[in-house]
């Protein structure tokens, strides 16, 4: 997952805290990030599934997109206006977001390839109407923001928020831990946001995450980020979790890692992200690469992202060839590893459509051996997102 970069590595506001906690720091997307703490990836992973894990994801890109700059004074039209601006770049339904609701979508190129995947939130409050809160991947954030600015012209203003840290608190106990610090979070619905304040500092809390568990992502001003993290870590159910376990948790949850499972050459339909495109947007198009996406929807994509489970314990890693029972290469693994919660290897990758059905027996080549595997539904572990009671 580490990537080469030029220039000195950047640090998040929590850098000193990571060192103090004994983290092993590695370069990732131009930042020096904790890959694991002394607990180790395996135990950090299991801790998150059992209790609450705290992740520093401040390297990700946060920004507000404002559309009301004197353009729309009428409150009722502010959201439709900014939604129409961003819908020219993403296939997700932003128009029908309710105040405080967030959505997963993708920035697409003209061929329907994925430039990045991102979260778009419509702020809950009245003064926030006409703006959107965006969270994009670290490795692509500079290009994403330039791309957005190039396309919005004078119709909207993009305001980057490099002065905000981003923390994720994930796991079945996350809600109880966060409720002790920010009373009211327990009442939030999944994929919704709320503003909170600590003194004069404004926090953006969303009930969301990247682990398959219930949890929250908290955008916090860098001035109070370390204190806030320390407060969460004082709770006996919270442990600091590194990027290593973040990767194994998201893999078990069947979630894509940008640059690996999805990239400029994959469409959302090939990537099995069709669920993220509403009926209105599938039919009306109006986003980059809409023709390709609609063609893939109509005829079925040539290849499809699938999950893989194995007979043995040997994990297959990114880049391993996937073969038919007859030995013909039919695809490639894009993410693979050992799933601590299943105590077994899992992988995801792309295969020709003829082999994409759940249960299809296939082989995966690791160091010359053919591992017996089969196409498996994802997530590999059941999602435990919060559902309203």
């Amino acid at each position, binding site marked *: 997952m580490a990537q080469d970069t030029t220039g000195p590595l950047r640090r998040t506001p929590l850098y000193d805290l990571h060192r103090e906690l004994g983290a092993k720091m590695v370069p990732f997307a131009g930042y020096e990030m904790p*890959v*694991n703490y002394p607990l*180790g*990836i*395996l*135990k950090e*992973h299991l801790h998150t599934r059992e209790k609450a894990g705290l992740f520093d994801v401040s390297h990700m890109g946060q920004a507000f997109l404002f559309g009301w700059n004197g353009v729309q004074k009428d409150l009722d039209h502010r959201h439709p206006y900014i939604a129409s601006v961003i819908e020219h770049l993403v296939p997700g339904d932003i128009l029908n977001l309710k105040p405080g609701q967030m959505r997963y979508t993708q920035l697409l190129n003209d061929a329907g390839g994925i430039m990045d995947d991102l979260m778009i939130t419509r702020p809950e409050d009245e003064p926030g109407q006409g703006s959107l809160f965006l969270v994009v991947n670290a490795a692509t954030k500079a290009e994403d923001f330039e791309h957005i600015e190039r396309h919005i012209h004078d119709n909207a203003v993009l305001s980057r928020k490099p002065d905000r840290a981003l923390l994720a608190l994930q796991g079945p106990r996350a809600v109880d831990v966060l409720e002790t610090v920010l009373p009211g979070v327990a009442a939030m619905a999944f994929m919704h946001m709320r503003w909170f304040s600590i003194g004069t500092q404004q926090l953006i809390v969303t009930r969301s995450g990247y682990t398959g568990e219930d949890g929250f992502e908290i955008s916090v001003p860098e001035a109070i980020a370390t204190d806030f993290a320390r407060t969460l870590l004082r709770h006996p159910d919270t442990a600091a979790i590194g990027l*290593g*376990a973040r*990767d*194994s948790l998201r893999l078990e949850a069947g979630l894509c890692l940008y640059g690996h499972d999805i990239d400029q050459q994959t469409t959302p339909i090939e990537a099995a992200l069709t669920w993220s495109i509403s009926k209105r947007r599938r039919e009306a198009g109006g986003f980059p690469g809409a023709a390709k996406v609609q063609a893939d929807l109509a005829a079925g994509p040539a290849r499809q992202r699938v999950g893989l489970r194995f007979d043995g*314990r*040997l*994990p297959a*890693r990114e880049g391993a060839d996937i073969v038919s029972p007859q030995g013909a290469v039919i695809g490639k693994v894009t993410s693979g*590893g*050992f799933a*601590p919660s299943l105590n077994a*290897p899992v992988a995801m990758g792309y295969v020709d459509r003829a082999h994409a059905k759940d249960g299809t027996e296939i082989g995966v080549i690791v*160091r010359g051996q053919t591992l017996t595997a089969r196409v498996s539904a994802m997530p590999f572990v059941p999602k435990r997102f919060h559902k309203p009671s």
Partner: protein
Amino acid sequence: MSERRYTKDHEWISLNGDVATIGITPYAAQQLGDVVFVDLPLLGKKVDAKGEAAVVESVKAASEVYAPMSGEVVAVNDALTGEPAKVNADPAGEGWFLKLKISNRGEWDGLMTDAQYQSYIKELG
């Protein structure tokens, strides 16, 4: 315990007659993190010094284990198949990987002594 020698890739080797036992050092085990699978060679496989002898898989990545000396694989630690965590728990003991019938005793002298290895890992920090 008989004398041990070490490689820059953090394998250890001990000799009993012409049979060498090979494993990875506590430093390597700590760097790898939790071992989830060890891909051991077939008995009878011939390996060259610095050639790949086994692969150790952690949650995060696969890493090669190189043979410190040339020889033929005469035993593998089957216990690691069911309990790969032994590599982390006791890398210098129960977490051994394989035994080689060595073919070139002269290679021993090119390996680091315990004192040399300790100062080597100190430099790595």
